[in-house]
């Protein structure tokens, strides 16, 4: 499966990238995070949420979507 993965804020700073395509055989968000943590080891110590197709998703969620985002704590307003 090919995923579009977006990074924001502090996370985009760590990955030095705002968006990339990832080809992966993972089926859950947990597996995707595992994969990304290997690619970007500094992710491990960071606090973030995952959105799949623009909705916050828990770690057990099955990967279905084309758009994944790694979101650090929100600080709007």
């Amino acid at each position: 499966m090919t995923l579009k993965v977006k990074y924001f804020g502090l996370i985009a700073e760590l990955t030095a990238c705002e968006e990339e395509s990832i080809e992966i055989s993972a089926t859950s968000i947990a597996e995707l995070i595992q994969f990304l943590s290997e690619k970007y080891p500094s992710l491990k110590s960071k606090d973030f949420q995952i959105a799949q197709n623009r909705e916050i998703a828990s770690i057990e969620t099955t990967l279905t979507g084309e758009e994944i985002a790694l979101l650090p704590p929100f600080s709007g307003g």
Partner: protein
Amino acid sequence: MNEKKIKNVFKEGAISSEFIGQAIAKHQSKTTIGAHNIFLGQVRTDEINGKKVSAIMYTAYEDMANEKFHDIREATFKKFNLTCMHIYHSLGQVNTGEICLFVFVSSPHRKEVFEALEYVVEEIKSKAPVFGKEFFEDDTHQWKVNQ
């Protein structure tokens, strides 16, 4: 997701006091309104480890944020008897003393606007994927986290 058209709440840079004044003026033809309540978020000169914040640079997951702002708007209209509601959030650089968030609710009666405004602001703070990078006077930065 709702079928109504999703508005873009983001504005590039600070929200000016003239813009806010004009938004108020536009509501003077709506004579069923008896009460307006406005929240303005202003960038504060926070001092962190002896260094002063000079500006915040806002970025957002814009598509998701606009969907969330839309959902917040719909939920608020369901919960409260409002005549209208407007939300604007800055993107890009906002200097200390400038306004980065403008939330405006109007209703026939005051009780509704107080409850609705606080609800909307808290929802925005917790649900909108917006990220603030605080710049210090010495050009270093840190990522802001909402309290």
